[in-house]
């Protein structure tokens, strides 16, 4: 079975070369990444490391300058790629940009959620059903919210409405650029529960974030630093057993830092078990190790 996403030697730089800047700086260089099936992949790195650019390339908004970018069997790096092919690609691979609530531009929530599917020719009852499913998947009651004005929603509701607009396209790959930025912890937690549900339904989800606690919810994490991919591994492996996140200017979750510090102090933690990242489980492991 072909991989869902296959990147080989991917390069990207903004702008065109000119007399003053013959070679624009590379925002991404030598990226090799493979995603085989439905999984939750976290894209992490400091600001300016190329996370957003990568997601926009995968969404077909930016086209690779070099290398290979095969997404659902379409090579986005092919210079002869046609707008029609990209359009079809964007229907299967959907992105929610940073601050997705700013993507809302219709007056009523229902109309805004319907915008995407309507663009692809879905109408009538099928469209209403799509909108209902998408809104309820994001925890917005269809009857209560479909006729609400988008500017009357709270920040969290706006975010959910915007993500419902993306989900209404029923994507095979969902790309989320910092989906929980600016949300309070319970709303972010609820959002991630819904993202995990999507993964269970067979959707491949890639999300970028600066919250390392959220990264622990992912199946794998890809660490970016100055446009280069440093490593792709499970969050436990990256945070508990490697220094790679620190090399990329990231601060591992507190549980990982406590675990590593205890190890440095000679407390023999059970290494045969995958360390639990949540504080309660970690506390139990510590007690187990000390007694």
């Amino acid at each position: 079975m072909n991989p869902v996403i296959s990147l080989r030697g991917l390069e990207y730089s903004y702008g065109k070369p000119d007399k003053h800047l013959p070679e624009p700086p590379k925002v991404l260089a030598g990226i090799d990444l493979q995603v085989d099936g439905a999984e939750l992949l976290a894209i992490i790195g400091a600001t300016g490391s190329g996370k957003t650019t990568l997601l926009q390339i995968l969404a077909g908004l930016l086209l690779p300058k070099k290398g290979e970018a095969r997404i659902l069997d379409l090579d986005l790096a092919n210079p002869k790629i046609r707008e029609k092919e990209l359009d079809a690609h964007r229907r299967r691979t959907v992105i929610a940009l940073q601050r997705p609530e700013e993507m809302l531009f219709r007056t009523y929530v229902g109309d805004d959620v319907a915008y995407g599917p309507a663009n692809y020719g879905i109408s009538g009852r099928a469209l209403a059903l799509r909108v209902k499913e998408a809104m309820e998947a994001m925890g917005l009651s269809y009857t209560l919210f479909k006729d609400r004005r988008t500017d009357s929603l709270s920040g969290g509701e706006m975010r959910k409405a915007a993500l419902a607009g993306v989900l209404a396209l029923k994507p095979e790959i969902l790309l989320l650029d910092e989906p929980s930025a600016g949300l309070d912890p319970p709303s972010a937690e609820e959002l991630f529960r819904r993202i995990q549900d999507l993964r269970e339904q067979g959707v491949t989800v890639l999300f970028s974030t600066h919250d390392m606690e959220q990264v622990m919810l992912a199946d794998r994490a890809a660490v970016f630093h100055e446009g280069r991919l440093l490593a792709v591994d499970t969050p436990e492996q990256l945070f508990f057993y490697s220094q790679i996140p620190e090399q990329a200017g990231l601060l591992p979750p507190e549980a990982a830092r406590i675990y590593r510090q205890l190890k440095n102090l000679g407390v023999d933690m059970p290494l045969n078990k995958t360390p639990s990242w949540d504080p309660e489980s970690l506390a139990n492991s510590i007690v187990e190790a000390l007694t």
Partner: protein
Amino acid sequence: MRDFGSFGGGFDLFRRQASSGSLGQLHPGVKAAGLIVGVGTISLINSASGLLFILCCLLVAAGSTGLSAPRLLRPLLPVTPFLVLVVLLHGLTRSSSPGEALLSRGDILPMLIMSLRIITLMGWIGLSSAAVTTPEVSYGIEALFSPLERFGFPAGELGLIATVTFRFIPFLREESERLAKAQTARGGSLGFRSANPFRRMKAALPTMVPLFIGTLRRAEVLAESMHLRGYREKQSRIRLHRYPVKLQDLLWSAAGAAVLAAAVCMQYADTDARLVRELINSISSFRGVAV
């Protein structure tokens, strides 16, 4: 195919860094005065030879500051269709009767003056924009009108308006690009990446309303933040960067004034008649060779 990353830096009215030549080092007030006086004089001059003289001087001045002729005349590109139309209209609606010579002085001179005026104006604006940075424009406006402050003229406010306006140009570009991306990701408004300017214009239409709302929202935030940081109307302000008047400012001002004065004088001398005679002779000899 072009992607969204190729559109960055499209708007280039004033530079972030002035040209390195002596023209770029001038006092902002001199640059602002030069722009206003130059544009005003060129608009009023009704002499082809005078306009041609200014254009030649512009090319020399551009050369001395390291600017190429294409860069100088770049602002002419958007008005080229208008220029061609004007020339054609003058050519087609000539006043001479069928029995007269193909091109008489009465036909050719207005056509020549109109075309030269547009080319010279654009050249003058091109030279000014290449030598001025955006902060210098606002400082220049303030410096130019500061003598009127004693009569209650709001020179400082005018400079501030220019600063805020220029601050909004990149914001508008970023905002429209973001909206275009958001809509494209949901299958809407295809054609943003088309090389065809009309298709791009059509695709931009649906972004106008959210762009307008977004701009108003940003303007409100900016106004509030200015008040919070102590902005008060009619309060004298000081600047961190000050620009002293130097000898080269006086020399360039004198040279500019001399060029414009010479061009005005040419209007009253009979230089246009000789110019048109030479032009008609050369066209006739060309036609003779062609026949």
